[in-house]
């Protein structure tokens, strides 16, 4: 038996929204999220006919659909089924409202939004203010969200964050009250009986295959290997998996670590095969300008740019690689011209006529934008003027919308900036240049 005495003991909730996007859309239409068959389908030009982003519980049950995996062609033509377009901005707004509700139950530093529909709450210090048991408090939070926003929430309860997460994924989603609990005392009966490793958070098929090769096929076996051997084989991840099998998690939510090296970038899947150099460069230029604009909004300059190009299926079979990726150090800048010039150079160095389907631009080595580095080779006035131009364009777009002022190249064949200006996360809904 494991001695849990020195492990952190607290009260943690992991709360997620039942079929978040689908539920938000159902509520907006006055339909009950649990009764209606509804899918949220993105029909942007690059989704190859349509991509299901979310599915209501009823539609999941009836048609065996999965969110984010199903394509439009897999969705049956049933008159009972409603199909709606996504509205990403609305979901972001709802997420903020839900977290505001959570803040009535925990202090701000004890709340950690984990994704657009999941949050981790540390109720160790506050649960007693709201009920007789953590479960009571969970019910109260669920009722508050349902009453004020019309949405159903699922709650995983644990003595630490990983137990809460496992309780949510393994039990709460199938529970009639939509609540699941795992504690140190119930780890053997709740975690070990899990027979499919991929049902567990953090284990996808590659990790599962690796574990299978080591003779580990379920959570019981994972909990009963020699942790030192597992670490020798899989490194730190092995140690972490072993800890998870015993329900151990020593992370402290209120001591958050920022990323070591922040980066900022955008990528896009193109709506068709791009073959012509000019068209591809137009898109690279647009994405580069978008990233530069975001750098300026964050008051950062980038010391490194990277370009990733993905080939079309046919081209990658002929070429043997799926694409290429290269990065380059530059003098720190947030200007369109310099970033785009670096990207075009990277592209011309690597591209050899392949058809392109995917463009990604990232900037890293970010530093605070405190001034403009002048160079000797041009008059200072010209350099200052150019830097100002970018800021004026940003200001006009902030005020009147992105499409009010676009570069002529975006109007040429192949440009995608105008079409993408209203997308959020690649789907319908809002301004993506902030």
């Amino acid at each position, binding site marked *: 038996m494991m001695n849990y005495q020195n492990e952190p003991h607290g009260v943690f909730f992991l709360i997620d929204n039942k079929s978040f996007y689908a539920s938000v859309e159902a509520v*907006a239409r006055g*339909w*009950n999220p649990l*009764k209606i068959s509804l899918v949220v389908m993105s029909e942007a030009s690059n989704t190859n006919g349509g991509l299901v982003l979310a599915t209501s519980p009823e539609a999941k049950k009836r048609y065996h659909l999965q969110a984010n995996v199903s394509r439009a062609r897999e969705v049956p*033509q049933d*008159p009972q089924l*409603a199909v*709606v377009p996504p509205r990403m901005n609305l979901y972001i707004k709802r997420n903020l409202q839900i977290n505001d509700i959570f803040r009535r139950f925990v202090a701000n530093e004890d709340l950690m939004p984990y994704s657009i529909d999941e949050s981790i709450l540390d109720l160790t210090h506050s649960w007693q203010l709201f009920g007789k048991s953590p479960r009571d408090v969970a019910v109260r939070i669920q009722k508050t969200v349902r009453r004020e*926003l019309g949405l159903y929430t699922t709650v995983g309860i644990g003595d630490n964050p990983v137990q809460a997460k496992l309780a949510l994924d393994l039990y709460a989603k199938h529970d009639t009250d939509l609540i699941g609990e795992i504690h140190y005392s119930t780890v053997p009966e709740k975690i070990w009986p899990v027979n499919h490793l991929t049902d567990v958070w953090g284990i996808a098929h590659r990790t599962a295959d690796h574990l299978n090769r080591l003779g580990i096929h379920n959570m019981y076996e994972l909990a009963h290997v020699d942790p030192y051997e597992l670490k020798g084989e899989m490194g730190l991840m092995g140690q972490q998996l072993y800890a998870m099998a015993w329900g151990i998690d020593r992370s402290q939510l209120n001591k958050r670590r920022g990323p070591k090296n922040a980066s900022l970038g955008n990528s896009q899947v193109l709506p068709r095969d791009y073959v012509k150099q000019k068209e591809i460069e137009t898109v690279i230029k647009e994405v580069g300008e978008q990233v530069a604009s975001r750098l300026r909004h964050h008051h950062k300059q980038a010391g490194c740019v990277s370009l990733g190009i993905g080939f079309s299926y046919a081209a990658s079979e002929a070429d043997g690689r799926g694409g290429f990726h290269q990065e380059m150090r530059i003098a720190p800048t947030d200007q369109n011209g310099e970033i785009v010039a670096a990207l075009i150079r990277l592209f011309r160095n690597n591209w050899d006529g392949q058809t392109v389907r995917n463009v990604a631009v990232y900037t890293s080595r970010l530093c605070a934008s405190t001034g403009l580095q002048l160079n000797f080779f041009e008059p200072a006035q010209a350099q200052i003027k150019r830097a100002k131009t970018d800021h004026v364009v940003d200001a006009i777009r902030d005020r009147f919308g992105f499409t009010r002022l676009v570069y002529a190249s975006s109007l040429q064949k192949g440009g995608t900036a105008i079409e993408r200006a209203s997308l959020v996360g690649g789907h319908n809904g809002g301004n993506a240049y902030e």
Partner: protein
Amino acid sequence: MNDDLKLITERLDAGFKRLPQVRYQVQITDDPYDKTYNFFLNYQHRGQRLKSQPLHSIRQYRLTYLEQVVKGLREHTKLSIEYVGFTGQRWPSNQRLIQSRRLNVE
């Protein structure tokens, strides 16, 4: 014509393509959570999935205002209107029920 009505009719006209074998309908929902009235264009090809396109949300959460917008909408289109979430509520001008009965998916 006020701004709300203008937006609704513009978007309605863009979405109402008059395709054969397709039923078009305007849905108006009382959203008590956001305190808005939400407008949708619902259309369905015979035997196929229902598609529901958002048109607009009215922020003035008063039935007298809604009645005014619906009156304008009626002058603009002959599409039938389905009301959801209005069970028990009556139009201020003539005290008629807005929604005759509750849907079973509400």
